[in-house]
């Protein structure tokens, strides 16, 4: 107990969850719980793994671009316009899509750190998509790669 905890030492988590407005009858609920205990459940990655873009430009799609070494594709996905985007974000993305990296950079929200790092690189070398993508924090790069792994895993597990 005297050593500090390091990343990767986690063995598991305990959850306490309250479900309200249960619509089924108690017998059904009991059967469901008992069934879960005995059969377990598919160990899928949850949707938190896949980022905010969902099917349109989720992290796993960027991850695919990484595996394909398609750096322009990866960066383009980061700037893909989404239905849920705010107008100012859409403006910034539109500037990128038109190749106006300087304007895009100026229109970025302060929270768009990865996009900022990308545009900084593209402003100095518009063709260096590899460098631009790798200017993103390493942990963020890996999140995308792992999201792709997770997506393939989920599909394979379903097939199984």
């Amino acid at each position, binding site marked *: 107990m005297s050593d500090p905890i390091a990343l990767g030492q986690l063995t598991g988590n305990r959850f306490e969850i309250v*479900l309200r407005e249960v619509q089924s009858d108690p017998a059904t609920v009991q059967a469901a719980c008992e069934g879960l205990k005995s059969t377990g459940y598919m*160990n899928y990655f949850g949707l938190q793994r896949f980022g905010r873009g969902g099917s349109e430009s989720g992290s796993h799609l960027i991850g695919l671009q990484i*595996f394909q070494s398609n750096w322009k594709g990866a960066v383009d996905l980061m700037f893909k316009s989404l239905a849920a985007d705010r107008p100012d974000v859409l403006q910034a993305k539109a500037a990128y899509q038109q190749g106006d990296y300087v304007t895009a950079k100026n229109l970025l929200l302060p929270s768009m750190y990865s996009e900022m790092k990308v545009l900084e690189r593209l402003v100095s070398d518009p063709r260096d998509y590899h460098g631009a993508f790798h200017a993103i924090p390493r942990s963020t790069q*890996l999140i995308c790669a792992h999201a792709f792994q997770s997506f*393939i895993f989920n599909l394979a597990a379903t097939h199984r």
Partner: protein
Amino acid sequence: MVSLTSNLIDQISPDEEDIEAEGGAIDSVKEDNDDSPVDNPTEEIDVHVVTEEDLAVSRYSIRDVILPLIGKNVTLPEHQTGEFIKSLLLEKGLSLETINRVEKSGVKSRVRGHYRRVIEFPAEFTYRLVNYTDPNETIQQTEINTLNLQPQEGSVKESSNPSEATRLGLVIEFNLSAGSYATMLLRELMKEATDTSYHAGLTAATAASVSAGSARTEKRKESEIDESVENESTASASKRARESECQEKN
């Protein structure tokens, strides 16, 4: 499809340094030490391809079956799902050869292959049904309430006055392995209950759901936000349970 032959099995040996090759098809996946712990899982996985002999002595169960997370030096299972993975990768212009190609730097050099159990069993799983009336009343003592020394309100018991109790709640507690998602467990639990009650032809559920407002679980709210990726890649276990029943009869 639930036959265990040619599956990948996870045999983490108790002594992590002692990874033995057991005739035939074991690959040991060793991790390099040049990256930060954030990038690498710290456990070493001893991967074994299940053989007919293993099957004969029931050495493994469905709990041990694993599938790969695609990356460098990963082993594919030797059955249809392995082929399925290969074809999935192929249609995306990828193959194990291209993935294993050595990259000197960049993110691709840091993406390690790894493995994950296909089925998760919650441990120390307890559940209790509760009856309650006020949608906002506290059902389970939370840590914050305990810290603030607030008494647990309306501690509802199953034996409450039945004519007053109009709502049914479920409190569940369980342990999951690191990396396993409670949301996936809930999805399975709630879907299964719904399927069953549908078959039973309940009408009360439909009537009760008219009082919309708080008529959602916390988790269900979250999952409605972006289910597209989830629905694309997953299937419910009630389907799987039916399939495995058929398989075992064969």
